[in-house]
Each structure stands twice: as C-alpha cells, then as structure tokens.
C-alpha cells in the first residue's frame, strides 16, 4: 500500500509525459519537445540537489560545476582527435579494448576519438571522485561557510573551462557526436530523433525520481533527514553523519554530471555558461521554489522554469528573473510555492502592514 502511494505519482508523471508528446504530435508543435527534453535533463540536476539540500540539509552553490565536469569531459573526449597519438602505447591499448572509435571528420580527415559510452563513464566517475575528494573537507563546514566553499569550487570549474584550450576556452566544445545508448537509440539533437530523445530524457528523469524516492524512504534516507533535523542528535543515535553527507553530496554530483553528459550529446556541444555561477544559483532557486524537501516540487518547478527560460520568455533578464524568484520565495514562501496556504498568506501580509502602521502610531 505504501509502495503504491510512493509510485502512484510516478505513473501519473509517465502519463503526462506521454500525453504531452501525443498532444504536440497532433497539434504539430513538436518543437516544444526540444526544450522539454533539455528541461528534463536540467531537472535531474535539480532533484539531485533537492535531496542534498532539502533532505540532507547541505547547500551547494557549485552544482553547475559538476554538470560542467560531466558535459565538458564527455564533449572533449568524444571530439578531440587522437590520431596523431596513434603510435602511443596507451592510445593503442585503448583502441584494442574498443574504447576508441574511428570515423571520418567533417572535412574528410580520419578521426580517432573516445567511444561515448567510455567517455560518459569517465566523465561521471571523475565528477564523483572530485565530489568525494572535496566533499570530505568542505562538508565539515556549515551554512554560509559551506555555501561559500561550494561557490568557490563552482568558480574554479568555470575559470578552468574558460581558460583551457582543451575545453575550447570561451567557445566551448562543439560538434560533439551523438551518444548511442543501444543500437538504434542515440542521444543526439538530430531532427528525426526528437521524439526518441524526449523519451530518453524523461526515462532518465523517471529512473532518477524512483531511485531518490526509494532512498529518502529508506533507512539511509531517514538518517539523512535526521542530519538536517539535528546533526548532534543524529550522531548520538549512531549515524555517521560525515559519511552520509559525503554520500549524498557525491550522489547529487553524479546526477548533475550525468545530466551534463546527456545535454552535451543532445546539444552537440557545451559552453562555459553551463559552468557559470548563475547556473548554480538557478538550481538552488528552483529547489527553493519547489519547497526544499520536496522532490516532486523540485521536479515540477525544474521543468516549468527551465522550459520558460529555454523558450526565452524571460528574455535577457533570464538570470535576474531567477534572482528575483529566489528573493520572493525566501520572503513569502520559504516552504515552496506548492505549500502556500493562500488564506494564511493574506493574513500574514495584512498583519505585516497592520503592525507597521502600529509601530508608527506608538512612536
């Protein structure tokens, strides 16, 4: 019965996903699917961050960094030509075990690049290892200090992406090939596979949601939430709080990196803006709007806000809009907009003005 309650929304989500695809098919608005696909990937970052922030109680202003590590590594490995290094022992070894692919370049030259599957695994593992390495020391910090440390990490990744020739400096990486998950199933931005890619992205969201829902309802999930509730008491109950914080930090980093890999293959490239601090702030804002400890809230808000942003609704004020959203949420709906009780909000707003005028009269 509990399981039914837990998974019922997942089935509803599946129905909505299919419903939207069918509607766009018949109304000939399939171009919406492109933004919905990308929103889905960004939402994977958001729900991972939601579990870290809302349930684990640890903030990260550096998740765009992990997204970028995934995206950039996958992009760089699958585009940089290794043909000149073909004689090298390591390269021929990789070639022999099938981790490299030969192909023809855009101008007819021979290309030798890393197979996308291998690149994906390398990228995600690297992000996980980096999260593990920096998570150990920085998760000892709390509150503002943790926010600043993760912010610093995000800035470092951004500057590396911007400064290194390997990652294409300000231009980023382009002409990233598609990612064949299985024969006939390829993550790419090609026009014909738009519907397929929409389902790949949403498949990933649904798997991610199920894994995270399971996690937060498990023994480990309870321990994570207890850290958020009262870390000292959690420790006294035998919970190795440092280890659990690290686990969830690494997990959310892996989710971000995986999304980065897929988005890069889908877009055929990645640029430094994906690593920017404003992206990290955006993810945090979306988790806050969704209600912090609410995977479904984070997911819905992740889709809606990213979709609007990608459709260009916010124009050049894009980043400003997310800043404003963050301020408004913190002021008026710290529990997230899905938890607003309109009657009570009006009352508290009224009392705010009443008490203000009251102060004036007493003075």
């Amino acid at each position, binding site marked *: 019965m509990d399981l039914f309650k837990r998974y019922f929304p997942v089935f509803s989500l599946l129905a909505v996903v299919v419903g939207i695809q069918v509607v766009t098919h018949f109304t000939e608005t399939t171009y919406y699917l492109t933004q919905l696909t990308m929103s889905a990937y960004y939402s994977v970052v958001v729900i991972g961050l939601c579990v870290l922030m809302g349930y684990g109680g640890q903030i990260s202003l550096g998740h765009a960094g992990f997204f970028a590590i995934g995206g950039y590594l996958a992009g760089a490995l699958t585009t940089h030509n290794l043909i000149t290094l073909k004689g090298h022992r390591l390269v021929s070894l990789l070639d022999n075990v099938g981790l490299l692919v030969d192909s023809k370049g855009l101008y007819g030259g021979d290309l030798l690049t890393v197979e996308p599957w291998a690149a994906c695994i390398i990228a995600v593992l690297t992000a996980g290892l980096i999260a593990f390495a920096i998570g150990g020391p920085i998760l000892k910090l709390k509150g503002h200090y943790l926010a600043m440390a993760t912010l610093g990490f995000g800035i470092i990744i951004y500057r590396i992406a911007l400064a290194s020739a390997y990652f294409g400096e300000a231009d980023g990486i382009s002409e990233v090939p598609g990612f064949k998950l299985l024969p006939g199933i390829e993550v790419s931005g090609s026009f014909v596979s738009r519907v397929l890619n929409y389902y790949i992205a949403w498949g990933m969201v649904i798997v991610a949601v199920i894994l*995270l829902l*399971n996690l937060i309802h*498990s*023994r*480990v999930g*309870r321990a994570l*939430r207890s850290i958020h509730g*009262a870390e000292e008491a959690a*420790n006294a*109950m035998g919970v190795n709080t440092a280890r659990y914080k690290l686990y969830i930090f690494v997990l959310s980093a892996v989710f971000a990196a995986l999304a980065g890999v897929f988005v890069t293959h889908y877009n055929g490239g990645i640029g430094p803006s994906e690593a920017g601090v404003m992206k990290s702030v955006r993810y945090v804002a979306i988790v806050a709007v969704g209600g912090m400890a609410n995977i479904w809230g984070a997911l819905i808000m992740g889709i809606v806000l990213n979709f609007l942003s990608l459709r260009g609704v916010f124009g050049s004020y894009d980043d400003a809009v997310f800043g404003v959203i963050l301020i408004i949420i913190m002021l008026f709906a710290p529990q997230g907009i899905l938890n607003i009780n309109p009657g009570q909000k009006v009352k508290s707003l009224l009392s705010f003005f009443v008490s203000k005028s009251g102060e004036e009269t007493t003075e």
Partner: protein
Amino acid sequence: MALLEIQNLNRRFGGLQAVNSVSFTMEQGMIKAVIGPNGAGKTTLFNLIAGNLPANSGNIFFNETKINGRKPYQIARLGLSRTYQNIKLFHGMTALENVMLGRHIRSKAGFVAGMLNLPWTWPEERMIRDKSMEYLDLLGVAGCADIEVSNLSFGQQRGIEFARALATEPTLLLLDEPAAGLNIYETAEIGRLISKIRESGITILLVEHDMSLVMDISDEIVVLSFGEKIAEDLPHNIQQNEEVIRVYLGDEG
C-alpha cells in the same frame, strides 16, 4: 569490572576548569545521579562521556573499552545512548520516524539497497517500524506517531526523545535533566519510568536538579562543584554531607 569508569577527567574552556580531575565508576544495573549547582560542569561531563567534547586529559572506559577520543556515533554503537537537557528531536520528521532513527544501529540496509528498494530490506523496515511503535507505546505517546514533532507538546517531545534513546537498546543511558520543565505529576511519572527502565537491565546516569526525584530513584549520587567532585555517596548520606550542604546553601547556611 565496572560498566563505566571515569579516571581523572579534565576539561578546560580557556581559563575555566569545567571538569577537574573527576573520577568515579558505575556498576551494571545501577542508577547514578550527578548533581551540583549551576555551572558545576555536569553537562560538560555528559558531553565528554558521549564524545561530543574531547577531554584535555583523563580516561573514560565503557565496557572495558577506552572511549575518549572516539566519535559520538562510534560510542553510540557501543551501547551508550542519551537525551538532552533542551530536547533535540529531528524536526521535519514524525514522532515515529524519530524513534525509528533509534533503530539505526540495530539495522543495516545500505545506500544502494535503499535506492533500489531491494526486497530484503522490507522485513527489516517492518521490524524497525514495529519496534519503534513498541517504544512509543511504552512511553505513552503512540498516539502521536504520525505527527511532525514540532507540533507536539513539551511533555510529548520528551517522551519521544526517551523512546528514541531506548530504541537503540543501550546498556548505558545518559539522561540530562529528564524532569526539566515538567510539573510535579509529570516528574513523578518520569521517576517511575526511569525505575522501570532500570528494571529492564539498563544502567542509568542522570543529571538532575529536582532533588526529590534524585533522592527517590538514585542508588548513588556524585556531587560536583566548580568542576570538582566533592562527594560521592548514598542519597541519605549526601543529604547529611556538610560539604554538600555548604555548596548548595552557602557558608552561613
């Protein structure tokens, strides 16, 4: 050998000697109380035993294992549990979930098993839930099981904290002012409860200001003043102890 043995324990905060060469031992199955005026170092002593603070010098042996220098979660796994003077519950979680955390060290489903919701974790989850309900029931707060703990009354919260501590099945239970903020009826109730817990074989060390409660239930009393142990004796001897009377009532008393 004693269940808990404290040897020459010292802790300074800057120039203040909060705990000064304190030594005492506790036998299995007893109730021992630590009393003393405000600032005598009682809570510091608790934090040293539970591993929340490192000691400057001295040793603490629990079940013949040296525990000073260990992390609180490691000490908890050895069978030591505690409650706090100002209740520390997990906010944002229900009463039942709070107590279920007490079962953390008595269960083992890991990260991956939890994410995949593997079937072998289900019986364990059910066990955790059933056991936790029993402890809520024992404390008379089973009715609050599904209520988020911040919405509960002070007395109910204290009950849940007790249930959580008991759910770890400790051999030694540290109670930091269990009767603080309770009225005389609730205090008497807590006293009966503590005796009942002892009957189930759990050794109890408590800090308490309520003298009637302390005199009623403890087998032995340790008196601290300015970080030093000034007396350790049976309750009725402590009542006659001139040093203790002087510390509590002043020289002219």
